[in-house]
């Protein structure tokens, strides 16, 4: 009986935490993800061992980027998501940005990223249903842009 009560309390606490937290700094919570040198490790550092599925999530980035210093990447999705992470495999570290999707958020995000060479952008979206959606796009970079 005691144990059951205890477990119940634990569950309640877990359920409450995400709602009360207004800010999640993934850099502090998951430092491993931001120092990993390849995409697989970075995903592992951020979400743990996960299986990904295809889903309604699109990434828009130029096929050939003339300037690697500022590549516009747009992510759109109609899914109910908790977070989205962008990774790439051209730079020394893989993680680029992790978005936390607020309750009122509509997933139509654009940001500009740097890549020092041609590579592949991988986007992992964490759904509220516990599934992980993955999509990726290869792109060529004419002029690398990691020299500041």
């Amino acid at each position, binding site marked *: 009986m005691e144990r059951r009560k205890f477990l119940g309390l634990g569950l309640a606490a877990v359920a409450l935490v995400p709602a009360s937290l207004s800010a999640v700094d993934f850099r502090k919570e998951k430092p491993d993800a931001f120092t990993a040198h390849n995409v697989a490790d970075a995903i592992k550092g951020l979400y743990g061992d996960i299986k990904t599925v295809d889903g309604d999530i699109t990434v828009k980035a130029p096929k050939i980027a003339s300037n690697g210093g500022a590549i516009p990447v747009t992510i759109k999705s109609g899914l109910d998501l908790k977070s989205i992470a962008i990774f790439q495999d051209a730079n020394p570290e893989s993680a680029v940005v992790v978005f936390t999707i607020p309750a009122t958020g509509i997933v139509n995000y654009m940001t500009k990223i740097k890549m020092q060479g041609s590579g592949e952008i991988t986007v992992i979206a964490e759904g509220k249903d516990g599934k992980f959606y993955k999509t990726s796009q290869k792109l060529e970079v004419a002029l690398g842009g*990691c020299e*500041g």
Partner: protein
Amino acid sequence: MGNMKIKAKVKGDTLKCKVQATHIMLPYNAAKKKGVDANFITHIVGKVGDTVVYEASTSQFLSKNPIFKFEAKAEGIKKGDKLEMTWTDLSGKTVTEAKKVKGLK
């Protein structure tokens, strides 16, 4: 001031925002060459009132003067409300700037 350019507009039931932060976003390898410390925005949050509308944990690979474009549901946003953006960089510097949300009657 002058650390950010913020545009926020409500169209229909959608809040559309565009933010450009003025920041050097110097990654580690480039900083090493220059012999200075790397510095980049690590976390950025957008709020209207008390509601968080945007949140990102960022790394060194965003472009210089990075742009963040995003949307959110406009529910509960009133005329005169401000979009408040706050970023923190690696050196610990925190900058907050706010701008009125446009397009509301």
